[in-house]
């Protein structure tokens, strides 16, 4: 009996799609466009997000030590920093190394800073990374209190502004994606409403003859899923082809490396396909309930 019904529902769904070719095409196109826009927005969001994470993880604290510390005092500072919660790594940079780094950033080996100045004015320091870059300002303040630490530097001011900016970009992107998804549902619901409107007599009759709500819903439901998935699939083909050609041709854009983790991309594409099916179904259900009330 159930098998018989399933066959009936599927044949009804396919019949309806082929009988209302133009409306079916309109629905598929609508889903394709919506999913495509959604997909582009999502990829942009993910890439921006990765970029911002990279920027944020570059944030670190430099703790400059007093010049007159003994070796054991220097080690002591390190263990105190490491004991703080939320510390990822603590790297010792000796004054000699600091000088070399400075010389490198000034243009390499063409002259020797050490001999030019006669002495090394730079202090020993620790380069500290936090597990969560957002904790850096608080940690810096704590480290500053330690005995033996002369001064801390973490790009004060700039870092706070970076964090504020990334927070806004993330919030705005999520809002835009949600709005796009809502717009898509509305658009699809309207298209499917037209298809259902064309068959309102049939639905009315079904209800009067004594069909249950779900018996009426199933074929439309399947139709929505099929058209939605179909539209999403077309969008995905365009999206995947477009993105992989961008990845292929431009490894980096403005020194920003693009997201290319195949696992993440697979999840994104799978999610979009599912979104298409869900959009189709949701659109159908929203439109259908009005006509079921007989």
């Amino acid at each position, binding site marked *: *009996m159930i098998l*018989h*019904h399933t066959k*009936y529902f599927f044949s009804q769904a396919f019949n309806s799609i082929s*009988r209302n070719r133009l409306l079916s095409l309109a629905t598929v196109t609508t889903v394709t466009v919506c999913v495509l826009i959604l997909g582009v927005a999502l990829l942009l969001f993910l890439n921006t997000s990765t970029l911002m994470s990279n920027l944020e993880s570059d944030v670190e604290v430099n703790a400059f030590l007093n010049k007159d510390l003994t070796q054991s005092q220097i080690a002591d500072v390190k263990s105190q920093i490491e004991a703080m919660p939320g510390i990822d790594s603590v790297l010792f940079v000796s004054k000699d190394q600091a000088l070399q780094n400075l010389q490198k950033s000034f243009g390499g080996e063409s002259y020797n800073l050490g001999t030019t100045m006669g002495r090394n004015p730079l202090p020993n320091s620790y380069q500290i990374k936090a597990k969560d870059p957002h904790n850096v300002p608080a940690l810096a303040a704590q480290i500053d209190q330690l005995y033996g630490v002369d001064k801390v530097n973490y790009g004060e001011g700039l870092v706070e502004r970076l964090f504020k900016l990334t927070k806004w970009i993330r919030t705005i992107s999520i809002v835009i994606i949600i709005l796009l998804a809502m717009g898509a549902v509305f658009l699809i619901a309207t298209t499917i409403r037209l298809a259902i409107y064309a068959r309102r*007599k*049939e639905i*009315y*009759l*079904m*209800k*009067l*003859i*004594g*069909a*249950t709500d779900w*018996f*009426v819903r199933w074929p439309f439901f399947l139709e929505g899923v099929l058209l939605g998935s179909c539209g999403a699939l077309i969008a995905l083909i365009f999206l995947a082809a477009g993105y992989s050609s961008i990845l292929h041709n431009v490894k980096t854009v403005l020194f920003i490396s693009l997201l290319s983790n195949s696992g993440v991309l697979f999840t994104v594409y799978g999610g979009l396909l599912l979104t298409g099916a869900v959009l189709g179904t949701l659109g159908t259900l929203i439109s259908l309930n009005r006509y079921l009330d*007989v």
Partner: protein
Amino acid sequence: MLVQFYNVSKIYPNAVKALDDISLKIDRGEFVFLVGQSGAGKSTLTKLLIREETPTRGQIFINSRSIVRMKRTQVPKMRRSIGMVFQDFKLLDTKTVFENVAFAMEVIGASTKEIKIRVPEVIKMVGLKGKEERFPGELSGGEQQRVGIARALVNRPLLLIADEPTGNLDRDTSLGIMELLYDINHKGTTVVMATHALDLVKAGRKRVLELERGRLISDKRPGDINNDFTSY
């Protein structure tokens, strides 16, 4: 008793009082004409019978079950015991005669085997044998209404409700449809027919319920002396 109305009133949201304190009973096997001018409440009464509308006040029983207190989920099952015939036939233009009749069985979940046996039977009964593969557009008005009647009968209803079934048909064709309805009634199905066509009512010599502005003003049976509806 198949149908019982107790003090039924229906007031639509726009404050129109369509039915006013109607009480009536219809027995199994009866043929009942429902007459009255447009707006008298005939359509509302038929809509209440299939629970397309619910009454504002009063109780309605079909087969001894209250359809007013009935849960929404139980409505489909109740409707399967009622067949509905419409003035404008309400056939599906993209389906053949056979498919239109089979449709009524499909939507209540009948098996293909049952459909293949029952549908030709009913099509033959309404006199359309040989036209199974035609589309409604290729049929005359009278033939289309026969398809509508076949669709209403295919699930063997206890009650057949016909709302102006001859409203769109000429006189001769109407007589043919009436013959068919009497025949169906003869075989045991209760029939309630709402109509304007007084000549058909007079010729029918059946029970007549007359509505006027939402009130039941007369209930006359063939045996009554003064069965001429002069008031209408």
